[in-house]
């Protein structure tokens, strides 16, 4: 069974159509969760709105549990899924740069697109900024190449990193997410609420 498209269960011409449908659902969910508002997004860093953490971790937890259940049920072959490659320094430094960008701009690429869709001008500027960022990166690729390709560990997962079974990794991840939610609510009650 799945993944369906790589295994050729439905012809690859459907690729684009499915992409648009998935994208529509993605956009709808992000927008409806309030991710088109940069102030709501930035709230996560100032403690007045933890929607980002909640949506992000709930989604990750649900997805990871679901993937492993589907694997168990034989609906999907986990071996065939694309695992994001691990380049330690690229991930840490890239993540740090993105973190600064997130706080400054108040969006991430997916959410900025949603905001563009409902006409936020700051989001349009942000998207233009992203493109300039990509351009800078590409033009100065020589500078970043060492970091970009350095310390490659291949397509590894936490199972390989920690050497424990996937079920335990998932269990700890779930626990971590629940703790994060509780802490988030705890902090929010103590922070002066801001209306936006």
């Amino acid at each position, binding site marked *: 069974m799945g993944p369906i498209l790589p295994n050729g269960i439905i012809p690859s011409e459907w690729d684009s159509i499915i992409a648009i449908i998935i994208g529509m659902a993605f*956009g709808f969910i992000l927008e409806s969760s309030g991710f088109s508002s940069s102030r709501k997004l930035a709230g996560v*860093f100032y403690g007045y709105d933890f929607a980002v953490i909640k949506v992000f971790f709930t989604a990750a937890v649900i997805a990871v549990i679901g993937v492993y259940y589907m694997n168990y049920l034989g609906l999907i072959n986990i071996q065939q899924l694309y695992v994001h490659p691990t*380049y330690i320094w690229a991930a840490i430094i890239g993540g740090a740069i993105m973190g600064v960008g997130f706080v400054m701009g108040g969006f991430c690429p997916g959410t900025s697109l949603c905001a563009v869709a409902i006409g936020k001008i700051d989001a349009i500027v942000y998207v233009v900024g992203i493109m300039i960022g990509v351009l800078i990166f590409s033009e100065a690729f020589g500078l970043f190449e060492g970091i970009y390709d350095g310390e490659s560990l291949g397509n590894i997962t936490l199972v390989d990193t920690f050497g424990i079974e996937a079920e335990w990794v998932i269990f700890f991840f779930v626990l971590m997410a629940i703790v994060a939610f509780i802490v988030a609510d705890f902090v929010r009650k103590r922070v002066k609420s801001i209306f936006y």
Partner: protein
Amino acid sequence: MNLNKEKNSHVYWNPYFGGFLLGILILFTFYMTGRGLGASGAMKSTVVTVVDAVAPTHAENNAYYSKFISEEKSPMNTWLVFETLGVLIGGFLSGGLSGRIGWRVQHSPKITSKRRLIYALAGGVLFGLGAQLARGCTSGAGLSGMAVLSTGGFITAFSIFGTGYIVAYFFRKNWI
């Protein structure tokens, strides 16, 4: 429930519900295509296409562009570009249903629009740079990576939020 549109426009989904649906969507995406969602990939494709059209030889000589240029396929003809189109449509639908559509610059009352736009541009530049370096943004590397327990995905996600909290203090005026 208040059906007044003016007030309704700020009522969002419960974040856990949004997260739940998003998780199911990622699951569905993995089931259908074998990989996760993404957003910044389309922007990269756009940049590559533009550069390729303006200065083809330059694009070919650049070590980074040339990775994404192939003879038979336009860089725009990728999964992620179609998905991004879908995101725009989906966002528009959702915003339209709750009456959130309109041209405006959203910013804290304490700062001017101009300042907000400058910061948005700077933030975008940084995010674009970081996303290329880390091979993905919050959705591509973070969410989709975490969904398959990718170590890189976890590192990226925690790095984004960790740095966010560290530097948040310096930009507090923009938001609160």
